[in-house]
Every structure is written in structure tokens, then in C-alpha cells.
């Protein structure tokens, strides 16, 4: 029997809200956070809609209570991570609460990011290119992925275990997976797992070279889709094992019952036409949970809106589910593609779907990729008897992960 891993807390910040409640309200209202670029300084501001967190770095620093030079990635990560600890009742005197009923718990932070402090580095670079002795070093101090996690950990007061995963767009799904494994092995008592990425010129231009950015609002899982909109944000989950759950005495309604990572091994950026990696990831997550495909009530899709992803993902789903499709939707139609953060943000949305028995619709879908009526959710749908959901996250390098959540 697999040991249960419970979701004991959650925190989110994205273009649809600065906390979990705001995010869920926007999902219920069908209100996307995508629009013209306001905060990022780029020549493409008028060309590509994005999902920016609606705050300047100064405003984020105020929310965080931080001073000094910090990457937007660190700020977003800290704000979401702190909310997750508060939500779990593990925040006290402005830091993580480590003593529970006289017992000192081992707490780990597993963050993930793809750009890390690139938002600062890319503004440092013009001066540095002119003269290698120029530019203020404080702007590259958080360049490294591990440095952003360090900054978040310092803000939270976590020292027992720090880790950062960087596997492109599946990063935070992999952080959640590792967290669950460390908890099952008893190496940690509590894990704060998730991911954070700020919008940057580096990623915006990078995705532009791949010609997969939509110049309009994206239309994922629609036959007429044109590409993705980039987003930014952070999501963190507090995960606990059975022992810690008993100690905390929380009444947890959602558990992480399965997970798997598989590699597509097809191409550095493109997904295979037969969706091998995503198929293996979903199949692996189901097998770990010991649940048949027919028991899945809903999939929160990776669903970026690129031709390639959506066709590969839907093929993989077809391979696994045959013609008995579960309901599915992609919340990237609200948030844009938040890269390292999306796995954790969508895990949170999936957990809320289970708790509130509600399926959030994909926005702007006119001709769904899977034509069968009702499969691609296009209207807010209140359901009954939803017990199991899958959340998919696939990234560059063929890195495919699938998380399986169940009601306890």
C-alpha cells in the first residue's frame, strides 16, 4: 500500500490573482489575465499578449516585505510559498513554524525555475557587453536558479533542505514528485514544493524565435489555435506524509495519489506526433495510483495552444483513454504559459476542482481538438462524484510529467 501524501497548504500568484482565492475567483468567472505587455520592457510590447502579474517589482517587494535588489522570480516565489505555509498553519512570527507539539520537524523547500534571475541579468548585460568591468554586480547575484531558491528560503527561514529543479515547463510538477518521494522515504517531514518564473525578454524572444507565440489571445485545444501566450507567476504546495498529517491534525481533503515522469526522446523542443512521453507519464501516474483510466473524471491539460503540443497531447490521451474521454480543459487560456510555475499552479487548480466539484472551462474554444461534445469543457461545470483528476506538464527536452490527485 502506497503511503498517502496530503496537500496541506497552497499558495499562488499569477496574472489572474495575487493569491489562491483570487485565482479561483477568476477561473470561476471565466476571466483571463492576458493582455498587452505593461511591466516588461521590450520592443515586442505591442506584438504579443502575455499574462503578467499585475504589480511592479516595487509593489511585489512591498507585498513580500523585502528590500534590496531581488529578481521578480524570487519575489513571486516567496509570495506564493509564504501563502502556502500560512494556508497550512505553518507560518508564525514571520517565518516557517518548525516546532509542532514540541517536535522539531524537518522541512524542505523544493523550488523550480527556468529563467531564475534572468530578468535582472538581461538589464545588466548591455553595460557589461560594452565593458566587462561595468554593471552593478547586485543585478547578477540572483542569476543562478539556485540563488533564487536561496533567497526564497532565507525569507521563509528554511535551512533543512534546499533544492531547485529545472526541467523547463515540467519543472514544478517534478518538484512536487520529488517532494512526495522524500516524504514517503521519511527523509523530510514537510515539503514546500512548487515553481516560479518571471516574464523576461530572454524567454519572450526565445519563444518568438520558435515562432510559437500567438499574436492574439491564445486558443489552446482549439483546431484554429495559433500558438501560446507567455505568462508568469508562482505556485507552491505544502505536502505532508501520514505521520506529519497526524501531528498537524489537519483535515486534508486532497492527496497526491500518483505521479510519473517520462521522456519523449523525440526532439529537443518538439513533442512526438504519437505523444509517447505524455502517454507514458499519464499511464505511469495512473498505475501508481492503482486506478483504471475510466475512473479519471478530469484532466487539467498541459494545453499550451501550440499546434505541436495540443496535437501530441490529445493523441496521447486518445491512446490511453480510447474513446472514453474524461472531461478536460486548459487553464493556460487564463494564465498563459507560466513555464516552471505551471505544474504547481495547475496542481492547485486541480485540487480545487476536486474539493469544489467544479470544472473550469477552457476559454475561447470554438472548434475543440477533441470533437466529442462535452469533453473539452467550455462552460463552468458543476459536477458530482469527481474523485480523481490528472494534471499534465510537459517541457523542452521531452520532459513529461503527470500528477494524479484524489479526494481522500
Amino acid at each position, binding site marked *: 500500500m502506497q503511503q498517502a501524501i496530503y496537500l496541506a497548504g497552497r499558495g499562488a500568484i499569477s496574472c489572474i490573482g495575487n493569491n489562491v482565492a483570487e485565482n479561483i475567483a477568476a477561473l470561476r468567472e471565466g476571466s483571463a489575465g492576458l493582455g498587452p505587455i505593461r511591466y516588461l520592457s521590450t520592443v515586442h510590447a505591442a506584438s504579443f499578449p502575455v499574462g503578467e502579474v499585475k504589480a511592479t517589482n516595487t509593489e511585489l517587494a512591498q507585498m513580500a516585505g523585502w528590500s534590496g535588489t531581488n529578481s521578480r522570480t524570487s519575489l513571486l516565489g516567496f509570495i506564493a510559498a509564504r501563502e502556502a505555509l500560512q494556508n497550512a498553519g505553518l507560518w508564525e512570527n514571520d517565518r516557517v513554524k518548525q516546532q509542532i507539539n514540541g517536535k522539531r520537524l524537518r522541512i524542505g523547500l523544493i523550488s523550480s525555475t527556468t529563467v531564475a534571475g534572468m530578468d535582472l541579468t538581461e538589464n545588466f548585460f548591455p553595460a557589461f557587453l560594452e565593458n566587462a568591468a561595468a554593471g552593478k554586480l547586485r543585478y547578477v547575484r540572483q542569476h543562478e536558479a539556485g540563488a533564487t531558491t536561496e533567497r526564497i528560503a532565507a525569507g521563509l527561514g528554511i535551512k533543512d533542505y534546499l533544492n531547485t529543479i529545472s526541467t523547463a515547463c515540467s519543472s514544478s510538477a517534478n518538484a512536487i514528485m520529488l517532494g512526495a518521494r522524500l516524504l514517503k522515504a521519511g527523509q523530510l517531514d514537510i515539503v514546500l514544493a512548487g515553481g516560479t518564473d518571471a516574464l523576461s525578454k530572454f524567454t519572450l524572444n526565445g519563444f518568438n*524565435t*520558435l*515562432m510559437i507565440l500567438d499574436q492574439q489571445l491564445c486558443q489552446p485545444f482549439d483546431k484554429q489555435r495559433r500558438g501560446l501566450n507567455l505568462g508568469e507567476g508562482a505556485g507552491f504546495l505544502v505536502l505532508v506524509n501520514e505521520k506529519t498529517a497526524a501531528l498537524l491534525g489537519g483535515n486534508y481533503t486532497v492527496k497526491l495519489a500518483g505521479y510519473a515522469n517520462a521522456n519523449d526522446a523525440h*526532439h*529537443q*523542443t*518538439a513533442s512526438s506526433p504519437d505523444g509517447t512521453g505524455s502517454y507514458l507519464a499519464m499511464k505511469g501516474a495512473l498505475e501508481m495510483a492503482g486506478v483504471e483510466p475510466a475512473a479519471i473524471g478530469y484532466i487539467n491539460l498541459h494545453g499550451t495552444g501550440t499546434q505541436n503540443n495540443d496535437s501530441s497531447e490529445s493523441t496521447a490521451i486518445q491512446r490511453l483513454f480510447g474513446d472514453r474521454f474524461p472531461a478536460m480543459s486548459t487553464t493556460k487560456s487564463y494564465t498563459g504559459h507560466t513555464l516552471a510555475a505551471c505544474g504547481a499552479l495547475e496542481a492547485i487548480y486541480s485540487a480545487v476542482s476536486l474539493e469544489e466539484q467544479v470544472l473550469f472551462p477552457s476559454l475561447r474554444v470554438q472548434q475543440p481538438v477533441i470533437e466529442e461534445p462535452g469533453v473539452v469543457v467550455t462552460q463552468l461545470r458543476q459536477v458530482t462524484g469527481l474523485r480523481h483528476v490528472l494534471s499534465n506538464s510537459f517541457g523542452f527536452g521531452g520532459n513529461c510529467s503527470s500528477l494524479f490527485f484524489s479526494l481522500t
Partner: protein
Amino acid sequence: MNREQLVEELKQQIIEQLNLQVKPADIVASDPLFNEGLGLDSIDALELIVLMQQKYRIKLANAEDGPKVFQSVDTMADFILANQTTQAG
């Protein structure tokens, strides 16, 4: 520049842009560039789109035109000549 010179120039530029481990003489202008030919892939197609833009000021409207234009060095040369004429005219 005549067509012959253009073809030679293109071979050199393709090798540089894609960091190919071959000499210009190894590339047959009529041979396919992708798959069985030089073994180029979708990333190379995106590189070639930028090459066309940078060196010849020709913008491919969308990535789907790539396979047609980038079939071989010959088709690239034809496309450049056709579009440069249009622009000059």
C-alpha cells in the same frame, strides 16, 4: 550577382548559420536539405528563415512556407531571385 554566385554564397551561409561539418563542395544544389539530405530539421528551418531575413531582407510570412522554400539550395536561390525582382520592380 548571378544565380550561380548566389548558389555558392547560399551554401557558405547555410554552413555557417547551421554550423554544418561539411564543405560547400559537399552540398549539391539540387539535393534535399532536410531529412535524408543534409539531415536538417525544424530548428534549422527556423534558422534559415532568419538567414533569409538578415542577408536578403526577405520575410517568410509563416513557418509553414519553410518546407517549400527550403527544399534545396536551388529552391532557396529561386525564391530569393523571384522576391528580389518583385521588390526591385
